[in-house]
């Protein structure tokens, strides 16, 4: 077995037992990146020398027995997390010259625990997109191919498309992502890996380039639920620098993955059965429920009546917050500058040149819904609907321990599809958006393949701060699904 095929848990054991060095493990991943990144474009920046220096430090730590939870584990960091001294672009031209003088809390937590950073993962510009097609640094190609059409380049999903593609193709053992409307779970589903959006407040947003502050959730990607559990434990925790960071204990998520689901009540939200859902996604969902029934869980129909309003409400709240957050990019303090006739012209030309079409659209929508005379009709109404969506979840969780549903309405689509109409692209998040609005944790686990041989994920949604149940149910699905299909493009293939 190649080093790049190991899980984080297995690599941790191998490093501890000195079966291989952190340097060898890191070199194996850097070699894989060199071979495959030209085809995948999963990384915007590769920090090879830095990674090898971190690997040597990890080997020294192992030699003296000073082991941390992630000592020697090579990861990819979404280019939305500020990394001290390493360019951080958010996938945007406007940040193309930006080198942060500080480290985000989540990435600092990973470094504290011994992780090695291979580089910065590609993403949709400012995390706005579901296909990675909006990146100013070019699209990411999904390592999976359609069985019948090996030539078509598929999207990895988005916005954390580079992170998901890197982990799927074995260019990294795990990765960070952020989920604002589905940006961890949908790419995890498209790339056949595991991705978890924790509870809002579980992982600090400090040093993460802001998109929509009340919706942005940093979280992990890996190839198993156990590996995601290992990563989340390091990433999570209270941070005084983020006023919305939750001061609650971080449990042992890895232990939670081994919990039985016997006696658990699993809810099936009937509103997620949407018109025109692909038959194989519906079948996989039913299969997943049967697996849980067989494992001793009780399956209960529940209702989340405001589900269909989640996405339209999201497309008021998220652009509104984005228009405010992205006001800081003015060409004066950092990032790109385009000169103009006067200061105002400098602002307008800098922002026109620096932001791509999707980001400009969302800033304009956000500016409009917050503008005088329209605030109540749009923004206030959307926040009231958000309250109703949270109420739906609260009432459902009075009856059940977790909800199970598909992650995305389709498998990965081809680059260039769904590009003509912005709303068509937005509908990718129909099953993921509600959990972001409510702030509750959710995981996507690969559960099967469609007729084209592409991976499909199932989603487990849990109560706020109960990631443990989400991991337990996700791991139970993972055990029975025994998903072992491999992408076409991968290290060692």
């Amino acid at each position, binding site marked *: 077995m190649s080093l790049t095929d190991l899980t984080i848990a297995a690599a941790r054991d191998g490093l501890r037992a000195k079966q291989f060095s952190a340097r060898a493990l890191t070199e194996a991943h850097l070699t894989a990146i060199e071979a495959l990144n030209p085809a995948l474009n999963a990384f915007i920046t590769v920090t090879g020398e830095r990674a090898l220096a971190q690997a040597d430090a990890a080997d020294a730590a192992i030699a003296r027995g000073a082991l941390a939870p992630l000592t020697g584990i090579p990861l990819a960091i979404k280019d939305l997390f500020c990394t001290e001294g390493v360019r951080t672009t958010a996938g945007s031209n406007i940040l193309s010259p930006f080198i942060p003088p500080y480290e985000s809390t989540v990435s600092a937590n990973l470094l504290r625990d011994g992780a090695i950073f291979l580089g910065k993962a590609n993403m949709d510009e400012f995390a706005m997109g579901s296909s990675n097609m909006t990146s100013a640094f070019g699209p990411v190609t999904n390592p999976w191919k359609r069985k019948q059409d090996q030539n078509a380049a598929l999207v990895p999903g988005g916005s954390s498309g580079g992170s998901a593609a890197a982990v799927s193709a074995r260019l990294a053992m795990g990765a960070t992502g952020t989920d604002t409307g589905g940006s961890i779970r949908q790419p995890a589903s498209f790339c056949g890996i595991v991705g978890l959006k924790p509870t809002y407040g579980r992982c600090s947003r400090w040093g993460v380039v802001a998109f929509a502050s009340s919706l942005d959730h940093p979280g992990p990607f890996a190839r198993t639920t156990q590996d995601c559990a290992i990563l989340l434990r390091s990433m999570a925790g209270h941070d005084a620098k983020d006023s919305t960071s939750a001061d609650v204990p971080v449990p042992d998520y890895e232990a939670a993955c081994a919990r039985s689901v016997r006696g658990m009540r699993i809810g099936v939200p009937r509103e997620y059965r949407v018109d025109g859902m692909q038959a194989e996604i519906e079948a996989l969902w039913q299969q997943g429920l049967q697996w849980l029934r067989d494992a001793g869980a009780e399956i209960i129909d529940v209702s989340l009546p405001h589900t269909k309003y989640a996405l339209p409400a999201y497309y008021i709240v998220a652009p509104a917050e984005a228009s405010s957050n992205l006001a800081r990019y003015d060409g004066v303090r950092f990032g790109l500058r385009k000169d103009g006739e006067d200061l105002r012209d400098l602002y307008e030309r800098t922002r026109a040149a620096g932001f791509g079409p999707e980001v400009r659209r969302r800033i304009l929508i956000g*500016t409009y819904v917050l503008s005088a005379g329209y605030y109540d009709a749009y923004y206030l109404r*959307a926040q*009231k609907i958000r309250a109703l969506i949270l109420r739906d979840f609260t009432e459902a969780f009075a009856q059940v321990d977790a909800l199970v549903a598909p992650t995305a309405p389709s498998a990965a689509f081809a680059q260039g599809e769904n590009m003509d109409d912005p*709303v068509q692209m937005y509908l990718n998040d129909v099953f993921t958006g509600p959990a972001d609005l409510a702030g509750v944790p959710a995981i996507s686990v690969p559960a099967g393949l469609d007729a084209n041989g592409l991976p499909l994920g199932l989603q487990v949604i849990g109560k706020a701060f109960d990631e443990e149940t989400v991991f337990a149910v996700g791991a139970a699905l993972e055990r029975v699904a025994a998903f072992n299909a491999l992408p076409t493009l991968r290290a060692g293939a």
Partner: protein
Amino acid sequence: MSLDPATVRRIATLARIHVEEDELPRLQAELNGILGWIEQLNEVNVDGVEPLTGAVQMALKMREDVVTDGGYPDKVLANAPERAGDFYAVPKVVE
């Protein structure tokens, strides 16, 4: 409700994004497409519902009102496109 070209231009000005005249029709169509789709929220009865501003309701923490950070102008200015001493530099705004 549908945005006319003048409104699209006004929004772009508020957002400080330069828009060329020939970009307006496409932008107008896209924004109206999105706003038209959002209209469905008007079906929902929100009488008596308190707006939710954040996902997880919790009390914000308090701390002493003291300076906890700072004192490194070079770090702060390291990414400035243009600087003059310890200041950001911009085109002249006062004649």
